[in-house]
């Protein structure tokens, strides 16, 4: 989830990635749409003009998401979107993914180890262990699974803590 290894401007970078696919679109239209996409992920044009090295971790991931949304995909792949973020940014990013998924009608395929994300934003979870999918279903299915690895993943000390806390919060 790095926006770009090239040090061109963030907003411009993803503008140009669109420009390459829609070369017939005028430059100012692309710039406006780029600004809109950045605003949709919660970034102002001022932040969009920053270099990738000047962005914070959360902003980096937002820019990457905006760029992924540049061409209006139906399916978005995210690889560990909340890793390395503080709980505030991670929570915000989770709810952003959820909002965009609902408003834009996206299908989001997310690879994650974040128990919080799994509990809060995922509709369907598949557990990959020892190279195979060992469980598939909702978070409740995961919590009742008998597979030893899934059990220790979701109902280990950390898993139980989060499950308890979320239950507490929802009550």
């Amino acid at each position, binding site marked *: 989830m790095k926006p770009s*290894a*090239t*040090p061109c401007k963030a*907003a411009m970078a993803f503008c140009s990635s669109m420009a390459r696919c*829609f070369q*017939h*679109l*005028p430059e100012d*239209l692309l*710039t*406006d*749409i*780029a*600004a*809109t*996409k*950045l*605003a*949709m992920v919660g970034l*102002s*044009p*001022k932040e*969009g*003009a920053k*270099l*990738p*090295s000047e962005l914070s971790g959360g902003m980096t991931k937002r820019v990457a998401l905006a760029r992924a*949304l540049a*061409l*209006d995909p139906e399916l978005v792949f995210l690889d560990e979107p909340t890793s390395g973020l503080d709980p505030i940014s991670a929570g915000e990013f989770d709810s952003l993914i959820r*909002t965009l998924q*609902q*408003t*834009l*009608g996206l299908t989001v395929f997310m690879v994650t180890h974040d128990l919080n994300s799994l509990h809060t934003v995922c509709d369907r979870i598949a557990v990959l262990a020892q190279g195979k999918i060992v469980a598939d279903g909702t978070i409740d299915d995961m919590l009742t699974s008998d597979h030893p690895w899934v059990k220790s993943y979701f109902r280990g000390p950390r898993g139980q803590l989060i499950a308890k806390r979320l239950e507490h919060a929802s009550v």
Partner: protein
Amino acid sequence: MTAIPSQSLLHVTTDAGGAQLIAAGDWTAPNALLLDQTIKAFLVATPPPQAVSVDLANIAELDTFGAWHLANLVRELRSRGTETGISGVNDRFADMLALVGKASEERVVSTERRWTPAATLEAVGRATVEAWQSFQLLLNMLGAICAAIWRTIRNPSTFRFTSAVHHIDRVGFQAIPIILLITFLIGCIIAQQGFFHFRKFGADDYVVDMVGILVLREIGVLIVAIMVAGRSGSSYTAELGSMKMREEIDALRTMGFDPIQVLVLPRVLALVIALPILTFLGSMSALYGGELVAWLYGGMSPDIFVARLKDAISITHFKVGMIKAPFMALIIGVVACTEGMRVGGSAESLGIRTTASVVTAIFLVIVLDGLFAIFFASIGM
């Protein structure tokens, strides 16, 4: 892309009270250009009507491109004082329209700078300050290396012997083939040019003097130093720079190691040891090249060449070349390590610093050569 008549995307009917717009078809990215043109044409052609109602019931597909155009149309109309109503919004698109409508209020503020004389002066000023700071950083690095040498002398067990040997192998031993080849060719070229032009005056014999003095005093050490700056200086900068990028140098500092002592000193020392050796080998190779050309092209037998060479050059010429080598190595090493340490967080800065390292090192090597020429001339060597 198939051309779709604009009528099918936006159908306009005008009456006394205002205009009805019926949006239909696919308001999606592939039609974005058409939408753009249609909406602009509508906005330009019509004088602002009192009221406009936009009917979205016939829209088949909508994505963010279409939603943006719709939001833009409504905003443009409202900014002209036209009452604008939207009807027939499909539930599927309501959320997206709301989100995009809100997001599209953001406008890109142009940050492009115009050219002014003051900006040029500012750039010149910045470049001057930058050059001065670079020079200070070089002195800083030289001082740090001296301090590290002093610490190593007082506590020799801290010296990274293995690392130094590894770097001598890399910048010295592994560079031998390419250095021999290049200097051999340079020797050949100088001799060939010498014969070609001196022959007109019947001064063939003096080609040997020229080749001998030029190679031993100047060309040998200069070519080798420039080769080493390009070959090893750049790799030093890139190595240290990528370590800096991955914060490995900070990690060393945290663990209580001095990066200068651990990384820079073995590298600079390896260059200072390797460059004189390479210079010697390079000079010999160039003389050999000269001799070969003298024999095959100039018709001068090797015996005569060697005899002429004995008369033409003395040990002084050899010394002049060799004395310069370690100083040039020091400059290359200091510049390469300083630039490596200046790499920031981005891949771009690694490229900039590596280029700066090679350019600065070659420039300073040539400047140093000039200073040595003045020095040796004034002490009569």
